[in-house]
């Protein structure tokens, strides 16, 4: 009963996302075109260096990795950091924190409510593009299991990172610069264009310690081909970085609400 209100929050967000069908269709189209571009890019790249595989991954493997990583990454929209920033700036946060629910949990379940329909549409359209351009993927039971575990954790990690960034609005008003840095961190090290497996070795070793590969790249990488050691490493990174992100979000929220003044009315 205590937590049923959060399920209701999630349900409302599912309905709200489904209502915006034109947005979902637009996003699906964008994801499909992106997969088309990636297929073209990596086909040309592999052809240029006369290779069929790099570090054991062929073009189809790379494309499927990007299909998954892009679909997962796009599913968290609208961006939690921007939503929280708007609430802090506009003052509507004062309304929310007076309600009988946890502000952070409210947004957590809202986020998962948005993720559900977005993920279905994105993965459906991107996978269709993947099948058309490079054929069916070969996903084993082990890789599916590992991928799903990492996927769930990556959404939690993404939410709390975005949440912490949005809460910085208590001090900086505008958090767009932090949001860009976060998204670009995901873009560069999160395997959204260039999978980490294709990075130069030295850079890859450094990047593996960052939170970004532990997000959407990790489930994508494991879904394409299972690697037990890599699974354990990504899980360890996810647990470590999620703990840091949760602590940051809670700390920033508690410090930030002290600055909120309510005048009634």
């Amino acid at each position: 009963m205590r937590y049923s209100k959060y399920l209701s929050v999630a349900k409302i967000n599912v309905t709200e996302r489904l209502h915006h069908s034109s947005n979902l269709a637009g996003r699906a189209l964008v994801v499909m075109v992106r997969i088309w571009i990636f297929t073209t890019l990596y086909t040309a790249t592999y052809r240029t260096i006369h290779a069929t595989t790099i570090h054991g991954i062929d073009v189809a493997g790379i494309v499927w990795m990007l299909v998954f990583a892009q679909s997962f990454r796009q599913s968290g929209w609208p961006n939690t950091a921007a939503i929280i920033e708007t609430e802090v700036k506009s003052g509507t946060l004062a309304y929310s924190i007076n309600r009988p629910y946890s502000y952070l949990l409210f947004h957590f379940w809202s986020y998962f409510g948005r993720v559900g329909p977005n993920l279905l549409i994105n993965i459906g359209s991107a996978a269709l593009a993947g099948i058309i351009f490079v054929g069916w993927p070969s996903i084993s039971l082990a890789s599916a299991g590992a991928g799903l575990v990492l996927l769930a954790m990556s959404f939690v990690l993404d939410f709390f990172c975005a949440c912490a960034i949005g809460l910085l609005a208590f001090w900086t008003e505008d958090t767009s610069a932090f949001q860009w840095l976060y998204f670009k961190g995901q873009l560069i090290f999160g395997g959204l264009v260039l999978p980490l497996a294709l990075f130069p070795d030295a850079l890859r070793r450094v990047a593996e310690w960052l939170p970004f590969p532990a997000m959407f790249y990790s489930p994508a990488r494991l879904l394409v081909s299972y690697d037990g050691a890599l699974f354990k490493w990504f899980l360890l990174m996810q647990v470590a970085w999620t703990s840091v992100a949760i602590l940051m979000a809670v700390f920033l929220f508690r410090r930030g609400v002290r600055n909120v003044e309510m005048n009634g009315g």
Partner: protein
Amino acid sequence: MLPWKHAVKRIRLSLYFTRTNILAAMEFRTSFIVQVIGMLVNDAAVAMLWYIFFQSFPGVNGWGWQDTAILMATSTLSFSFVFIFFKGAGDIAVIVRQGELDYYLAFPADVLWHVSASRSRIDAIGDALFAFGIFFLFTPVTFVTFAVFLIASLAAAGVMYGFTVVTQSLAFYTPNIEDASRDLFELLLGFSFYPQNIFTGGIRAVTIFVIPAFFTATIPHRLIAHFAWPALGVLVLAAIIAVTVAILFFRYSLRRYESGNLMVTRG
């Protein structure tokens, strides 16, 4: 009033709007600096991604890091031209949905121009700085290449503006199109950062007729790498067509607008 006098007046007013918007943003100095530097770092991050890519794969069909540097310079400069001076074009869908167009309709000025010029994207100043930075650092700079860089980016900005207005004006026909419009624009930017010589056949047709990256990325890059008058002519013609189509489509779509009778106080 003579057409050229009318155009000069519009340009002057646009510059005045932009100046006022920038001065207003500078009131919050920290926020202003964070936005500009943030965008600069943001663009540098994308450049870094491609730098890493070309460290792993030194060339794609002969396309190398310097080509990508040229591409990024022209694309970000075009973007900054559009969004420093005409940011409102990217907000049309939101303005229509919120019924805020009433405000602009009450003025004798052209609605599309007024909506577009009334807002400025401050972080786009960071894009402009990045564009000049990467151009001077990584491309062969001569007087000619610099002039071509400015002219090609300006013409590409015309195409980008036209595309923005058309996609945003879809809000007159269907509600909740904001995210989709933004996605389409991001797709245009997305096309603009990939090696352009990989786009052939069907995907090239898409970049010419659907998402006009051929005009905002391929031709500007080609003009700086290997200048040719016909290519410049095609780009300028594309810009004129894009802006004309945008104006006509917006005017036609505006007939569908229904006032929300929104009452707001503007500062």
